[in-house]
């Protein structure tokens, strides 16, 4: 007691104790002397006696009052341990609040008074059997919090019992107790792992977070325990409470790094700037075109990515950050960027959150500039930011700076330099230095700017500038002698040692460039040598030595004088240096050997210093961790392992009992797609696959009574469920059903019919994905067997869909169309190819199937497209392909082209063209490539040379053509090894656009700018039944690649796009009038294109 009290006192300074006294009086106003006992131990004793009396009285209210005061003491960090016997008697009290306060006390002091603490144990043991789950749980909580080694066996027993308790709340408590017991007695590890294993199987969302926490604490290396629960955890994740989500996500990140192969492609096809990846498009990716890429993402890997994505919208910043780090460490490079927006959003949160998030962004932005570049303005410094936040923002801005934006960044920096926060201003100067070295174009500008700063009045700014200039000059010393001169002039006014030293060093290093000034500076230094700082003295000695070597005539005496001064300096470093220099440069008999090399030693060319980010090496730590924040390994940090070269057996995660691997692979592939199992209905969606999702989504759009269809497909999903999994997973699905049914199931049915936009959403990104076609199949490719099987499955799904429901015949029709084409295509290729290579078949088929299907879907529900602003996905992709080269003229090589209407990935101004090459001859064609082109200025991005095309095989390639906003044909030569054929691609005017979405307001505004000459319009007559919006948007979308602008009026439809090449806005308005006439208005500054488009539209709409 005595020692404790004195301890406390020693921490509190005078002010502290004073306020503590006040506190005491405030909290216990009834007690005259409570809390006044600092230093006066007698009073303290008396007060405690007082409390003891109250605790031993018979009145509950007195006891409670006493306990409240005791808790007050504990809160202030005062010692109340001598009351232990009196308090512990009340542990069995009936009054819940009293009991709780006693618990608080027990937990705090049991460790110190182990023997007495044992008195309370039997009470807890009794309470563990209480019918009230709250009491059971709190008894276990306290029992396990008492750190008394003797009761370890009792705790173990209690934990085991609680782990199979009925109440999930008690089970959760037992998961917490595991960690406590483990920290008390590590020998129990094996037994505890058994309990953890049991609890991991628990399906309650309440338990999941806590048990994973226990897992991380007790046995993070027992990855094998996770296997069977992996999918369950992924599916439960959305419903787990926020704190549990953080823990589970970080555990799953580690797990995934050991179990899956790397999704990071080795080849640099997609540079870091590609921002187009949306994972929903993966279905398409997997199906579209298998190229010879070996990587295919494990479906479980995909499941994890998919189920964590919605959590980016959590309000809990820790959850968002942990999802972000999961994507960073696990997702394919092109998908990581979806986390950017959410991270930027976190910057609006509390200061501390900003700090951590900015640190992580700083690390990320070094590796992947492209991710954050569009959000650069979010990192502009505000005057209200704390200094550490300012410097982090500066760090990020520096990392993001590139040739394109450097001018804005520098302008920002200019303002920062003037900041009153000098630490920050100094940081800015360093940042300018880094920009100058990183971007060679602006080096001179920066240097000039820094030189201007030399005349700044603030010392820290000047000093920092000098240091940075020194570093910069060192990188390119050739032509900057005037800067050195300028600095020499400033030398007298600068007092910051580091800056002075830097100038001296520069003088010495480049003394040959300033032969007149350097000796003079040395002369001044000789005068003031004794009063300089050590670092300046050292540099003076250096300068003297260098000058002596280059210009000994003028400086010999000066040097000797300085060396003499240095010899008797107080600092031994300087004495040492002086002695060394003297021996080195002053020729004498004994050591001629070294002095010969003095020149070479002192004036050796020195490598320029690298100005690097302080966050460069932080990537060795997992993002979002404490270790990353403090840049050292925190205790308990678990390394993120490297990707395994070969994935471990994935069937370990399979919860099925018996089923051949080959069979479950496709079904697994499907589960991989399943959305977070928030409800059973969702499960139905996801299980039956994306294809079906699309189908049912579009088909049920207006379908009020889709119950029959629903029940049908529901059953279907059940079947699939059961086929795919054992009783275990069945149970889990029913569990999730149960848990969600309360909240959702009722509304879910009704909701279903409005689900359409989701499909659209999922579809759109694909369409938008300019590169997806190129990229698409990489992941899937290897397993065409799997693909075809699932394809066929989904086909049949789609069929069942289109059969059901009566109101969507139209759609069925439209769906049928592409399908027919697919079939015919397929047949053709089958005819052509025989059974040579199955891969190209699927490729062809899928590449045509999906865009057209997509297009259909898009076309169908176009009217309420919601998406991001700017360029959006095409509303419709015509499946029509044109002959580029007939097989007769092409001597066996036939080529067809079509416009996929994707933004071109090579250059934004290009239109992307998809070309299918087929070899119909009987010998392989080699080296198919593009030869001469005309007009010669035509900007074409050629496809990579196709080395060899086997007979009967076909291949799809992509090229980009800049049509320069004209429909003039692009002529070029298609060459094989032996021949070359002149071909031409003639674009329709509608294919030269890229759709953009904008608000109606923006549309009007733009329209207002494009009147008069830029407007062309026509009135047409159209059939009356087509006067609703959907049939209008469809033909328009067919003709031209335009985006729909949501319109307030029913009879006016607006479409917007921009030309690919020049980006000129194209606005189309279709105004339906009475008596089935319609007014088409086109506003664009490209009036030629406008009139051509008008002609096409007139045709299309009149037909309709």
């Amino acid at each position, binding site marked *: 007691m005595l020692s404790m009290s004195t301890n*406390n006192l020693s921490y509190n300074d005078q002010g*502290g104790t004073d306020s*503590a006294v006040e506190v005491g009086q405030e909290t216990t106003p009834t007690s005259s002397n409570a809390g006044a006992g600092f230093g006066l131990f007698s009073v303290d004793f008396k007060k405690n006696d007082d409390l003891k009396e109250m605790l031993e009285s018979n*009145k509950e209210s007195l006891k409670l009052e006493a306990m*409240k005061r005791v*808790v*007050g003491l*504990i*809160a202030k*960090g005062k010692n109340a341990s001598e009351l232990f016997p009196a308090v512990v008697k009340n542990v069995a009290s009936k*009054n*819940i609040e009293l009991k709780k306060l006693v618990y608080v006390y027990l937990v*705090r002091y049991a460790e110190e008074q182990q023997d007495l603490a044992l008195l309370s144990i039997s009470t807890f043991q009794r309470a563990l059997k209480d019918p*009230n789950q*709250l009491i059971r*749980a709190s008894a276990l*909580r306290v029992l*396990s*919090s008492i*750190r008394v080694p003797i009761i370890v066996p009792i705790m173990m027993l209690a934990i085991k019992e609680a782990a199979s308790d009925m109440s999930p709340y008690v089970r959760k*408590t037992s998961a*917490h107790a595991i960690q*406590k017991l483990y920290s008390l007695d590590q020998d129990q590890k094996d037994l505890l792992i058994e309990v953890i294993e049991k609890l991991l199987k628990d399906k309650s*969302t309440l338990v999941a977070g806590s048990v994973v*926490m226990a897992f991380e604490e007790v046995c993070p290396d027992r990855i094998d325990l996770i296997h069977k629960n992996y999918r369950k955890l992924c599916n439960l994740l959305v419903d787990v409470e*926020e*704190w549990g989500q*953080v823990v589970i996500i*970080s555990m799953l990140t580690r797990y995934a790094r050991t179990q899956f192969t790397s999704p990071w492609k080795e080849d640099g096809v997609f540079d870091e700037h590609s921002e187009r990846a949306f994972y929903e498009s993966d279905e398409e990716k997997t199906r579209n075109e298998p190229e010879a890429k070996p990587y295919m993402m494990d479906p479980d890997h995909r499941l994890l990515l998919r189920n964590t994505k919605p959590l980016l*919208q959590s*309000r809990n910043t*820790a959850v968002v950050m*942990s999802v972000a780090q999961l994507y960073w460490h696990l997702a394919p490079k092109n998908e990581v960027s979806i986390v950017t*927006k959410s991270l930027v*959003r976190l910057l*609006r949160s*509390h200061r*501390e*959150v900003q700090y*951590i998030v900015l640190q992580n962004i700083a690390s990320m932005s070094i590796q992947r500039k492209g991710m954050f570049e569009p959000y650069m303005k*979010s990192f*502009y410094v505000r005057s209200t930011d704390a200094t550490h936040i300012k410097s982090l923002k500066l760090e990020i801005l520096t990392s993001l700076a590139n040739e394109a934006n450097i001018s804005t960044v520098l302008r*920002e920096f200019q303002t920062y330099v*003037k900041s009153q926060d000098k630490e920050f201003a100094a940081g800015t100067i360093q940042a300018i230095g880094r920009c100058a070295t990183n971007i060679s174009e602006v080096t001179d500008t920066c240097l000039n700017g820094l030189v201007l700063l030399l005349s700044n*009045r603030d010392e820290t700014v000047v000093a920092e500038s000098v240091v940075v200039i020194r570093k910069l000059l060192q990188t390119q010393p050739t032509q900057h002698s005037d800067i050195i001169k300028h600095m020499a002039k400033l030398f007298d006014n600068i007092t910051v040692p580091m800056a002075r030293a830097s100038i001296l060093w520069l003088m010495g290093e480049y003394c040959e460039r300033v032969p007149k000034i350097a000796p003079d500076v040395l002369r001044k230094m000789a005068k003031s040598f004794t009063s300089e700082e050590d670092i300046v003295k050292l540099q003076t000695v250096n300068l003297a030595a260098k000058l002596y070597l280059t210009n000994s005539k003028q400086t010999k005496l000066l040097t000797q004088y300085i060396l003499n001064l240095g010899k008797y300096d107080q600092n031994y470093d300087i004495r040492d240096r002086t002695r060394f220099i003297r021996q080195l440069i002053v020729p004498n008999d004994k050591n001629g050997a070294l002095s010969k090399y003095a020149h070479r030693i002192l004036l050796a060319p020195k490598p320029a210093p690298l100005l690097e980010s302080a966050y460069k090496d932080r990537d060795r730590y997992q993002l*979002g961790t*404490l270790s990353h*924040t403090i840049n050292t390994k925190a205790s*308990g940090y678990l390394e993120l392992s490297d990707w395994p070269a070969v994935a471990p057996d994935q069937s370990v995660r399979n919860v099925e009992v018996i089923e051949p691997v080959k069979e479950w692979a496709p079904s697994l592939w499907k589960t991989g797609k399943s959305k977070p199992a*928030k409800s059973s209905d969702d499960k139905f969606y996801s299980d039956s696959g994306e294809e079906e999702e699309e189908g049912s989504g579009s088909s049920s759009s207006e379908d009020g009574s889709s119950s029959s269809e629903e029940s049908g497909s529901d059953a279907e999903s059940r079947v699939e469920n059961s086929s795919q999994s054992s009783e275990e997973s069945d149970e889990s699905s029913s569990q999730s059903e149960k848990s969600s049914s*309360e*909240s959702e199931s009722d509304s879910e049915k009704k*909701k279903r019919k*409005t689900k*359409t*936009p*989701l499909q659209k*959403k999922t579809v759109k990104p694909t369409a938008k994905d300019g590169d997806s076609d190129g990229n698409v199949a990489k992941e899937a490719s290897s397993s065409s067997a799997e693909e075809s099987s699932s394809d066929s499955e989904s086909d049949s799904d789609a069929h069942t869909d289109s059969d059901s429901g009566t109101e969507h015949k139209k759609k069925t029709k439209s769906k049928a169309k592409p399908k027919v084409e697919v079939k015919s295509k397929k047949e053709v290729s089958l005819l052509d190819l025989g059974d040579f290579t199955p891969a190209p078949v699927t490729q062809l088929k899928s590449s045509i199937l999906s865009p057209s299907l997509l297009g259909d879907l898009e076309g169908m529900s176009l009217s309420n497209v919601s998406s*991001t*602003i700017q360029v959006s996905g095409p509303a419709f992709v015509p499946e029509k392909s044109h002959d580029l080269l007939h097989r007769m003229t092409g001597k066996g090589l036939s080529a067809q082209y079509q416009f996929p209407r994707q933004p071109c990935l090579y250059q934004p101004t290009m239109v992307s063209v998809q070309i299918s090459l087929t070899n119909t001859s009987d010998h392989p064609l080699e080296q198919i490539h593009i030869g001469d082109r005309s007009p010669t200025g035509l900007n074409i991005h050629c496809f990579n040379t196709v080395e060899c095309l086997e007979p009967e095989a076909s291949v799809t390639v992509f090229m980009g053509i800049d049509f320069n906003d004209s429909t003039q044909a692009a002529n070029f030569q298609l060459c094989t090894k032996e021949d070359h054929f002149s071909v031409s691609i003639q674009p329709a005017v509608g294919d030269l656009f890229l759709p953009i979405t904008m608000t109606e307001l923006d549309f009007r505004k733009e329209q207002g700018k494009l009147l008069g000459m830029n407007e062309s319009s026509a009135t047409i007559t159209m059939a009356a039944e087509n006067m609703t919006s959907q049939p209008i948007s469809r033909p328009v979308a067919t003709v031209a690649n335009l985006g729909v602008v949501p319109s307030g009026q029913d009879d006016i439809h607006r479409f917007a796009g921009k030309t690919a090449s020049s980006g000129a806005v194209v606005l189309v308005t279709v105004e339906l009038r009475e008596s089935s006439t319609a007014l088409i208005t086109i506003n664009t500054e490209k009036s030629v294109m406008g009139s051509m488009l008008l002609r096409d539209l007139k045709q299309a709409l009149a037909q309709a």
Partner: protein
Amino acid sequence: MIHSLFLVNSSGDIFLEKHWKSVVSRSVCDYFFEAQERASEPENVPPVIPTPHHYLISVLRHRIYFVAVIQSEVPPLFVIEFLHRVVDTFQDYFGVCTEAAIKDNVVVVYELLEEMLDNGFPLATESNILKELIKPPTILRTVVNTITGSTNVGEQLPTGQLSVVPWRRTGVKYTNNEAYFDVVEEIDAIIDKSGSTITAEIQGVIDACVKLTGMPDLTLSFMNPRLLDDVSFHPCVRFKRWEAERILSFIPPDGNFRLLSYHVSCQNLVAIPVYVKHNITFREGSSQGRFELTLGPKQTMGKGLEAVLISSQLPRGVLNTNLNPSQGTYNFDPVTKLLSWDVGKINPQKLPSLKGSMSLQAGASKPDENPTINIQFKIQQSALSG
């Protein structure tokens, strides 16, 4: 996870401590005090401080540092987020989160902390649940409790804890069923010397006060959901439905809560509804400077600007100011050099201005930095994002 929590006031005293595992000596906070001393401003204390055996993670709110002691690796945001949640809970319970309020309610605070963390891992952080476990103190209840000896602690396990809607308790009853939604939008802009906007962002929140009986399932749809560029939700909102239909569907918690916060990406720059004309000059050699500010509304769509508050950090060389506001009151702190001017409501007919002179340190050269001016204001009934 979280080992201990210390509450430190602005003068550097620990006024509350709580340990969830074995006791960590107060002396660990010495490292924190060191960092606090080094920091020029209270905000500049680094949120994460490594010490030889522990890590200190702190947040500063309401001039109180909440210092959590960590012993091993844990995501720092996890701790920070939790600490903020603790502060929010205190605020919810006591109305304010000040040192005095915490000291007055130390028992409730302790009970709350006990419920919120078990062994350092968050247990119950939803205010609906906590309020069932521990009733918030009200004057009436305090009186009743002292007379009858009844308690603040609930006897039953909160129903929400076990259900699928952990944020709502069952058996809510109101005679008047009502739900209010507040849309609050904030605009953050940086404007350069000449008045052109460098960057502007709009951040909005929808705060709700829902008092409905039973288990209501609400849907909320927006006229133009595309405006909401990036959204974060209260856990009660169903993510899937939002993604699918842009409709908010949720079972609300009882009482006040923040339904969502969103970020509006501004393609075209936002119109800032206020402008400032400034003329601040320092003359070389003389010890006088001129200071002139005029405010005016701009494109406010007829809505009045209210609660306008201007603050500016003047250069260190300024000794004192002699200014004359046309309305409101101004205040200059000669120590921190912070000038603040509480303008109040702006009357478009008579634009408020602040004119006068500054006296500079004699002999000192003219300060070369331009003071930054921060303006805060409110506009009722207006949404900037449109």
